[in-house]
């Protein structure tokens, strides 16, 4: 062990920070198992004195707040969105990285520059565009427009630039066409980058707030984050119910994160250095 590793101050600091960062999440889950009365106790308790699943029973049996439906909506939208991003960004990123064509430089410059355009300027026009497609209040509004973002293309292009060309060249010499080469040879070698992009896109879409807040209207078409604001309105200070909703919304992303945290963190890290 190095000298730093034996420093008790380091471990004290790490423990303290862990409590600060994870403590609120633990309190959220514990609160969801409290009675309404205990959740409003002064001074507040941390560990439930009396465990109850009342909050979950209320949530799962409320016809006005179809939490399971919201969960399914979020799951379908985020999954479809992530798959769409990975497919279109891989193809476009590959073209930008490996193919020579007129206007490549200019086109890539234009696409890249939109990464710095703040998303809110698209709110009004995209609302009207989706309206004309008849996509308002449908999951398509959540799945498709976000896939036009430049990050995925940039991310995949960077990856393909770093990928050795030998595989493709030998495949082509064996007479494979461009699409065969791409889908059979290139993509299997791009798995780590694709998984990273898949996970990042899923997380971003699952958590998206402003856009779904304004393009989804009916109770049955909401995604979970928007449903949660509805719970806030319906249950105001019945915090166990609201925390139960928040816990349900957190569960999939936290589980996903536990399994693929390395991909998530590497993806975030690369956005700064290579950017």
């Amino acid at each position: 062990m190095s000298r730093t590793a034996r420093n008790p101050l380091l471990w004290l600091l790490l423990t303290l920070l862990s409590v600060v960062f994870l403590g609120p999440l633990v309190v959220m889950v514990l609160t969801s198992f409290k009675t309404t009365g205990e959740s409003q106790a002064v001074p507040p308790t941390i560990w439930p004195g009396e465990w109850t699943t009342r909050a979950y029973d209320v949530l799962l049996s409320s016809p006005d707040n179809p939490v399971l439906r919201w969960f399914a909506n979020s799951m379908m939208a985020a999954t479809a969105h992530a798959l769409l991003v990975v497919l279109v960004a891989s193809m476009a990123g590959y073209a930008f990285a490996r193919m020579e064509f007129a206007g490549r430089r200019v086109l890539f410059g234009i696409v890249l520059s939109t990464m710095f355009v703040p998303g809110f300027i698209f709110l009004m026009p995209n609302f009207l565009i989706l309206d004309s497609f008849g996509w308002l209040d449908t999951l398509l509004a959540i799945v498709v427009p976000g896939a036009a973002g430049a990050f995925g293309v940039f991310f995949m292009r960077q990856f393909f630039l770093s990928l050795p060309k030998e595989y493709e060249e030998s495949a082509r010499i064996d007479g494979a066409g461009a699409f065969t080469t791409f889908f059979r040879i290139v993509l299997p070698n791009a798995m780590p980058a694709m998984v990273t992009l898949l996970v990042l896109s899923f997380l971003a879409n699952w958590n998206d707030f402003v856009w779904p807040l304004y393009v989804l209207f009916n109770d049955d078409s909401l995604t979970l984050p928007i449903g949660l604001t509805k719970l806030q309105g319906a249950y105001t200070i019945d915090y166990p119910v609201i925390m139960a909703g928040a816990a349900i919304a957190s569960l999939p992303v936290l589980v996903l994160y536990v399994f693929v945290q390395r991909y998530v963190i590497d993806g975030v890290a690369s956005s700064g250095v290579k950017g």
Partner: protein
Amino acid sequence: MAVALRLGTSRREGSPWLPYLFLAPYLLLFVTFVAVPAVFGLWISLHDWDYMLDSQLFVGLGNYADLFDPTSVIYPDFWNGMQNTLVFTLASVPFLVALPLLLALLLHQKFPGRTFFRAMFFAPYVLGVAVIGLMWRYLLDANFGLVNSLLGTDIAWTTSQPWAWVGLVAVTVWWTMGFNAIIYLAGLGDIPVEHYEAASLDGASWWQKFRYVTLPGLRPVLVFVVVITVLASANMFGQSYIVTQGGPTQSTQTAIMVITDLGLSRFQMGAAAAESYLLALFLAVVSVLNFWLLRDRDAAQQRREARAQRRAVTR
């Protein structure tokens, strides 16, 4: 890439259209949801655009003029939102730039469990704003919130100023700190170990190493972090929307809240589009200023050379 080009034009996949076929799915999305709306949004902003009406009245730059006319209906809300956004940005960015750097320096040490702690500190960022907003609304409750209880205070975090801002800034720092820390960590990893060894040989102290090796080595990353953090703070929406609901008396109503309320709740889309373009213009100016103020001529030169080199290699 000469090889790809030559193979690309061989008999089998002979079409010069091939690259465009690969690009087509993305470009279709890009044109529909980015390029067209960027221009369409400007067009909307030149109209008294009411979603509820069939035909829209062209007003030229009227909406923009209204934003600078203190007697117009939209003026007070807009500038209140702009001012609130400025307050939040100025209050949050220093913490969001400095604290994650300290966290990254801590995590850059070698100790067992480093990856585990790194993952733990990043965890809040994985959650959405709706979740963390509701969670902190409960924790910050004036009567039975855990924060007051732990601090031994009696503060109305969500309904009085300046505490509402203190709370919103703290929540945002807690939520997004891990993101910036990860970017710093990657930057720290790119600083050559030899630079530290040379500094050690010269008898440099911890602070001198930080000041003369770490900070200069981190400069490009630092600029990136400052620029994206300013943009993220200026885009603040969910925290206010859920934790304080814009209150007390609209004092935490951010610019984006004003714009979405006007354009997508009250459907005055022309005025809202004009507001969004004006805000975007402000942010563009601020970003350019940030790049310019934080630029480093030597490093810029090095980057240019590196890029030229990369280009030469890929050709």
